């Protein structure tokens, strides 16, 4: 799938502030970001849900604006018309069947209670909802509830689908299936995904917004976000005594993220003085070590970011 075929949205914020009971908990002075799968990442309490709820129009703006636009038409997206949302816990009424729940959504959003059996049937099939249709809401696991709400979101064919922690608690196979599903629908809709699973985010998202303590600290494509957060990485290989070198480097470079991966050591951080690293390494092993400068992964970048902040 080429980038040109993807449905892309643009998130724009200008002097935006929002919060609860008059207390500002999220500030975003300036943001312009275009993407198809937008990752929203940050520590717990960073403001991810608040930003998501602001995009959904559920929180009042204390100042400025935060909106999403369709890049093709430059039309501002209206939450109730163009967006869908799937919460972390999924959703379905406990005492009615999944079928009744989906039928209710079909009636409300698609105009026909039978929509999920007609045009929307493919989503029921793709998300393997069929076997769940006759079950009551209370009989579903958290994962199943989330699948049901995901199917409901797809049924409403939004331009922008927001997911709160969709990969939380999923095993490898289910994570892969959901990732594939999102990527498969990028032509028709854009996604905003919050997650702590940086490995998955790095694989599927094209852009990311990083939040810290209610403020945007970085935003852009994944590579630029990684550089922005953590500068770059230096990977040292062909080490004779990796444990000893790891201990020495950890003492010598306390401000950097130093990881011992098998026989290699990786140092991540902003403005790493490679010469200084080389000289430190030389004290342990004068010859044979290889130094390679690289782009930090999102996992490392976030680790470094959270360690130093």
């Amino acid at each position, binding site marked *: 799938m080429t980038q040109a075929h993807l449905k892309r949205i643009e998130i724009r914020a200008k002097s935006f502030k929002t919060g609860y009971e008059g207390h500002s908990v999220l500030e975003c002075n300036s943001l312009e970001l275009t993407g198809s799968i937008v990752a929203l990442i940050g520590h717990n309490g960073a403001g991810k849900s608040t930003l998501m709820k602001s995009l959904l129009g559920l929180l009042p703006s204390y100042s400025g604006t935060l909106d999403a636009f369709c890049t093709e038409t430059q039309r501002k997206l209206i939450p*109730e018309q163009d967006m869908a*949302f799937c*919460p972390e816990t*999924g959703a379905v*009424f406990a005492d009615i069947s999944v079928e009744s729940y989906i039928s209710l959504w079909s*009636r409300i*959003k698609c105009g026909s209670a039978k929509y999920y059996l007609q045009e929307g049937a493919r989503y029921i099939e793709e998300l393997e909802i069929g076997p769940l249709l006759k079950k009551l809401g209370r009989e579903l696991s958290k994962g199943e509830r989330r699948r049901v*709400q995901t199917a409901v979101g797809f049924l409403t064919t939004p331009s922008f689908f927001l997911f709160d922690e969709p990969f939380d608690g999923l095993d490898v196979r289910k994570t892969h299936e959901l990732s594939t599903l999102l990527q498969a629908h990028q032509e028709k809709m854009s996604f905003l995904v919050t997650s702590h699973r940086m490995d998955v985010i790095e694989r599927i998202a094209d852009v990311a917004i990083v939040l810290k303590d209610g403020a945007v600290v970085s935003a852009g494509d994944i590579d630029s976000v990684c550089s922005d957060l953590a500068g770059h990485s230096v990977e040292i290989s062909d080490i004779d005594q990796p444990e000893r070198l790891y201990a020495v480097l950890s003492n010598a470079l306390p401000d950097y993220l130093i990881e011992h991966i098998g026989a290699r050591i990786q140092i991540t951080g902003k403005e790493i003085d490679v010469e200084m690293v080389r000289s430190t390494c030389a004290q342990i092993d004068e010859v044979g070590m290889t130094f390679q400068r690289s782009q930090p992964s999102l996992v490392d970048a976030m680790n470094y970011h959270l360690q130093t902040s």
Partner: protein
Amino acid sequence: MPRFRALSLALSYIRIPRLFLSLFFFPLLLSIVLVSVQLYVTLLYISTTDRDAKTLSTRIETAKKNNPTKFLLFGSMEDLAPLKVCRWMKQDGQEVPPSPDCAPDRLDIALHVPNPQDFDVTSYSKLIDGISERLHVCVKDCVPDIVIEHGQREQVVTHFRSVQGGLVLSLLHFQEDVTEHYITIAQSLDEIQNHFGDYLFFAPGYSKPIKITGILRSFALLLSIASLVVIALWLAVKAHRKILDYFSKSGALLPMVAAIGKREFYGALWLLTLFRVLAFLLASLPMLLVAFTLSEEKEAFYELFSYDLSFFALWLTSLLVSFGLASIVASIADLKHRHQFFSFLYRYVPLFLSFAGLLFWAISFFIPLESMALFRTLLSALPVIGSGPILIAPLFPPPLSVLFFHSVLTILIAMKLLRQNSQWFAAHLEAL
């Protein structure tokens, strides 16, 4: 068309059978039972407020003929056979009945006196004839469920050892000797009352005098109707909370509000609540009207509303919107401050305001100023604060325009409040 969207949304929810049953059908059944009990109690109370001799005499006669207590005790509403007096005798140091047909029964009455053989029982015989089969007279050994003890210093005490015994004693009120006295007193009071006729209060600011005679009965009728509205709104507030809980527990609240729009969703929730109130009123109001028009209080009911259906309709509407706003204020305040220790007090704030309004309104009658009439009119037109005077409007009828303005102002404030609160609601979905 956001309002119609909220309506279609509310209708969609009702079409879920389980939601319909738990939020509408069962509470409706329960509320109708409540209304029936409340109607019965009201009519019973009203019937006791008529104290003129003629009504009293009729009521006593009816009660004598159709006394459920008698049926419960004796299996028949008829009087028992004429009373047999059994004076117990001493035999081998013990008291025994004089004959086999004097063997004591539980519901007999015993008279413990120092001199059983020559004690004059004439007055007792007259009082209990027909409600007990035997009167046992002894010193201490005759012990049925009811014992009248004559002590040393002319002290008399009556003991009863079972509920049935107590019920037998309650029948004394309908014995000829007792009712005669009731009727005589009522006749004397009637004579005094006839010297003055009906009391009419010419209050400043009212176009016609207010009839004070029989006001208790009218007030009971009013309270009966008002309590319907209160029950309806109490159920509504409960329903509103229940609907919110239903959505929030399922996790569907946030996705639905996001997908539908906060105002539309919030509107749909209140519409569901309103449907429940309407369903309740549609079921209970006809019950109330039929009960009153078929009862002996038919005239009192018509008179209360001056035989004017439009006044009744306007009053009921004012009452409904007035208490409705109070419920909305209570519900929102309760929800917003639910984490505070004294949060439950918030729900009584509108009640307190209404009561304060009624108090000021009543006090104004003691202030001999022309402007007090205007004060009462303005106070009655105010939402929440004026709901007390609105409640008793059929007794102290303000101009129809006051009822109208009260209703309109209340509706406007309720709409503004709901509109404002939808924003708060959307921001706190996860906390609900």
